[in-house]
């Protein structure tokens, strides 16, 4: 990997992870209410269970917020580096890879290994959990395809 690509790649990965986490939390936990953070362990079908899950959703969101803040800091640092590659492809590819990475890591650990929750909780472990992983894999592959030339060093620094 090119050293010039590292600052923006790490920033965009962190921001992509954050965006993936917020989409999961906002869309699946809150709007669609398919699952909550611990809904496989603590059923969210009664008042107390739903409220306890809401607290753990908050802990998850706090963690995702911290990663997003880290991404902003890294992006600011990248912008100040004279030799950093700041290409749009690297940014976009990194964002996609970060989002996909979130789906893969969170999906494997929370949905499959620890069984904290599942994508569509009423079904338990279901094809939706595997679709979530495939979605993440596709985003990582797509992001890599977009950014690979910059990551390997085929693009000039400060290219936009």
């Amino acid at each position: 990997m090119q050293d010039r690509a590292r600052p923006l790649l790490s920033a965009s990965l962190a921001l992509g992870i954050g965006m993936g986490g917020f989409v999961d939390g906002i869309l699946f936990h809150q709007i669609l209410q398919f699952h909550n953070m611990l809904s496989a362990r603590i059923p969210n079908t009664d008042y107390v269970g739903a409220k306890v899950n809401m607290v753990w959703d908050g802990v998850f969101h706090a963690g995702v917020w911290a990663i997003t803040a880290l991404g902003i800091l890294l992006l600011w640092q990248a912008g100040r580096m004279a030799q950093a590659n700041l290409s749009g492809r690297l940014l976009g590819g990194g964002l996609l890879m970060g989002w996909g990475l979130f789906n893969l890591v969170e999906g494997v650990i929370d949905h499959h290994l620890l069984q904290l929750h599942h994508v569509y909780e009423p079904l338990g472990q279901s094809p939706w959990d595997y679709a979530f992983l495939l979605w993440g894999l596709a985003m990582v592959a797509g992001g890599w395809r977009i950014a690979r030339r910059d990551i390997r060093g085929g693009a000039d620094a400060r290219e936009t």
Partner: protein
Amino acid sequence: MAALGAALRADLYARPGVGGRCILLAIVVAVHAPAFACTLCHSPQSASIRERLLQPDLWLNLGAILFPIGLLVWIVALVAHAPAAKDR
């Protein structure tokens, strides 16, 4: 009390101006009811939520939720700082 509430609501809906907002503010300040939903409130519901949260599995749950987040931060740190053999 219900009639008063209905009258106030009607007033708020009919003339949602400064007067309505003042009435609303006065209600909030003067006749605030105990909040039943908040995590730190003193109500039977909140006590039940705290009781369930503070079970022995509290730290296990916290660790389980933070573990993937920590792993993702570690991956970002690796990309940002790990030495690249090809570049050196």
